[in-house]
């Protein structure tokens, strides 16, 4: 006997949807990160952890001036005050602020009115004293707390001092301030993050870490001393285990989220090339009532990370089945595909369940597509194991048997919806996925 097997066509409403919002990831990844954190909070997720970014720079010890130990200081010359002296004056910079050392036995750190653009720090008796004075001077600025390590590297070659700069407030808000103490030249602080947590759903929750990182070209990260354009990176974890990581590429995005789900997708048309703006979908699918949910809640993430921490062509919005760059599982546990293409295939593929006709949309006599429930099948393990099984419904989503254009709008159930993913009708069943466009 089958107990309550029937398809229920209704959408599953969270009641907490933000509706479709926009955010910009243009020249400022900091602003994008702040916006994304704000949007997740609007969806009901809360910040449960944060960590400030870090910048590490090194400069050879011999660059740091020592004082002469005795003398009567005189005034700075106009040349010194105007910052047109040579490099031997040990310049450092943090953003627009320039730091120079001075010998307190030769000069007083004052300049004629209107000419002093320097932040002066004393040269000490040793180069380490001078480096520490620089650190203290930068710390006085209130943005970063700076510490200095002892000599690192080959002492016979003079060695270097390592400066560690940590912003005084979390997390990545000051990551676009260029730091010029030494090398690497032009680096900034990075790897600050906020971790946002979804409300619990049957004791399971998701977390999203919003972080700034720089990726290298061999599938790894620079730690804190990389040079390059940091990316906004998202790491999704499930409280029962498992994670998925994806960098986000600059672009203009839509966001729609609720207590247990969020989606990010580009405002522009479909993406066909790698390392362009992309999409990400994250959901904690609620186990249905009754017997069918024996496997518990099912986390599901699909993105476009292609394995070398770059972005593969966006496949989320051009089909309604996914076999790569995803993570999912039953009982709250999320196994990822290690971002590899094709590691899960065949019946381990994640797919929406639809009713329609291959090669063409299928509509009513009035020309309207059949609006369908967003049932989804997930494998317990996307890299191995048995066939995918019905996990439940996605939140605030419906599918249709038509083929609308991405970005199209429709009214259904008294609500407005936006088409954000579709299959191409050629060779596959025609169907679209729609996101609740209005909040609530």
């Amino acid at each position, binding site marked *: 006997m089958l107990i309550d097997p*029937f398809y229920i066509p209704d959408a599953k409403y969270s009641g907490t949807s933000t509706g479709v919002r926009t955010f910009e990831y243009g020249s400022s990844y900091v602003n994008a990160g702040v916006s994304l954190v704000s949007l997740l909070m609007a969806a009901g997720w809360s910040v449960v952890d944060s960590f400030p970014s870090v910048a590490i720079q090194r400069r050879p010890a011999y660059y740091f001036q020592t004082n002469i130990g005795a003398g009567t200081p005189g005034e700075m010359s106009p040349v010194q005050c105007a910052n047109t002296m040579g490099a031997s004056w040990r310049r450092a910079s943090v953003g627009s602020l320039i730091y120079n050392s001075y010998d307190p036995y030769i000069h007083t750190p004052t300049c004629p009115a209107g000419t002093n653009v320097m932040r002066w720090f004393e040269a000490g008796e040793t180069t380490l004293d001078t480096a520490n004075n620089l650190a203290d001077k930068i710390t006085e600025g209130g943005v970063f707390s700076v510490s200095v390590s002892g000599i690192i590297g080959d002492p016979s070659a003079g060695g270097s001092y390592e400066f560690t700069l940590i912003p005084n407030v979390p997390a990545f808000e000051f990551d676009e301030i260029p730091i010029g103490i030494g090398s690497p030249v032009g680096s900034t602080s990075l790897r600050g993050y906020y971790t946002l947590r979804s409300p619990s759903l049957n004791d399971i929750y998701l977390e999203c870490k919003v972080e700034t990182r720089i990726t290298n070209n061999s599938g790894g990260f620079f730690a804190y001393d990389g040079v390059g354009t940091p990316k906004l990176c998202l790491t999704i974890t499930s409280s029962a285990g498992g994670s998925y990581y994806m960098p986000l590429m600059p672009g203009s995005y839509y966001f729609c989220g609720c207590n247990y789900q969020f989606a990010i997708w580009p405002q522009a048309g479909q993406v066909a090339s790698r390392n362009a703006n992309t999409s990400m979908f994250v959901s904690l699918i609620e186990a249905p009532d009754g017997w069918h949910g024996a496997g518990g809640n099912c986390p599901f993430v699909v993105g476009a990370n292609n394995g070398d921490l770059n972005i593969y062509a966006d496949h989320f919005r051009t089909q309604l089945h996914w076999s790569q760059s995803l993570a999912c599982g039953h009982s709250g546990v999320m196994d990822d595909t290690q971002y590899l293409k094709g590691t899960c295939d065949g019946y381990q593929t994640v797919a929406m369940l639809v009713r329609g*006709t*291959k*090669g063409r949309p*299928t509509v009513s006599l009035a020309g309207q597509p059949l609006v369908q429930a967003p049932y989804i099948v997930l494998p317990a393990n996307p890299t191995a194991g048995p066939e995918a099984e019905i996990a439940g419904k996605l939140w605030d989503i419906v599918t249709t048997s038509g083929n609308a254009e991405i970005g199209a709008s429709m009214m259904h159930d008294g609500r407005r919806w936006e088409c954000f993913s579709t299959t191409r009708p050629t060779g596959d069943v025609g169907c679209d996925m729609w996101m609740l466009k209005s909040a609530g």
Partner: protein
Amino acid sequence: MGLAYTDLPIVMETVSANPATFLDALRSILTAAGWTSAAYLTGYVYACLSPQGFAVQLRVWDPADSNFDDCFAFQWVSSYDPYPEGLIHHLRMDAALTYFVWANCCSLFIARPGITHTGDFLPWSVFGGVPHAAGLTEPTPQCEAQSPAAPEVTTELWFSSGSDNGVAGFGSSHSQNFRSSSFCQRFSFFRNGMNLGGDAVNEGAALQLGVIRPPGYLNNKRPSGFESGILWVDSTPMASDPLISVAGIWYGQLYDACCLSKPMALEATEQIFETDGDILTDWVNYMNGVGFTAADGRFSSLLLLTGGPTVVENIAY
């Protein structure tokens, strides 16, 4: 939409495929299901009416056609003069065999038990009737000429199909149909006086059940998927209303039937209990097959109602 129940008698029997007795056995079944009959050539013409008031007629006779040896002919026709005709579907007779027959007030499904088709491509299944029409309806009175209606208003609706490929001598393949597939390749489908049927060469033109299916498992991309069906985590399949469409338009659904998202043996039975209302129904499976092509997966069944819906009290499960 929910399932469309006729709430009228349903008859299911296994009868001999003996040509000497088959016509009378079938007449007995259809009469019990509420159909009326009259003599027609070497057999009978039946009339039936759906709960929505849509009528259709069915002719069954022995055509003695040497192109289709030992076959009876089934032909659904409109109920009004001049009686537009659907395709003729043949059904092989053999005294050594039997047929599974299921009928309600407006539908008939026949098939050789346990068989979808055989290598000699003999026709072993036939079915047709009146589906439940979606949207606005205005049934054409029986035997009256159809009156014009707005395009979205259904005034007539019926279909027929079977494994007969229509080729003299039975050709070199069978026609996909609801016995072997969620699609019918050679079919009649009449709506408002127009025949939308034919011999479909692709999925988009076929008569199809709106079975639940995953994109990406089609077109020979994922032929091995879902061998056990599309199941919930507790191994329960998903049941759904048996929507039907032709050429990309949903027209309605079959009466007293539902789709199940797992493959079942032919004539296998199943019970469904709905806790909302304590409703119990009994079913028998008519379909075991693939999609439009063999590469389209095998994860659906077509269940025909055999008992209920009845409200059950104190059921133990």
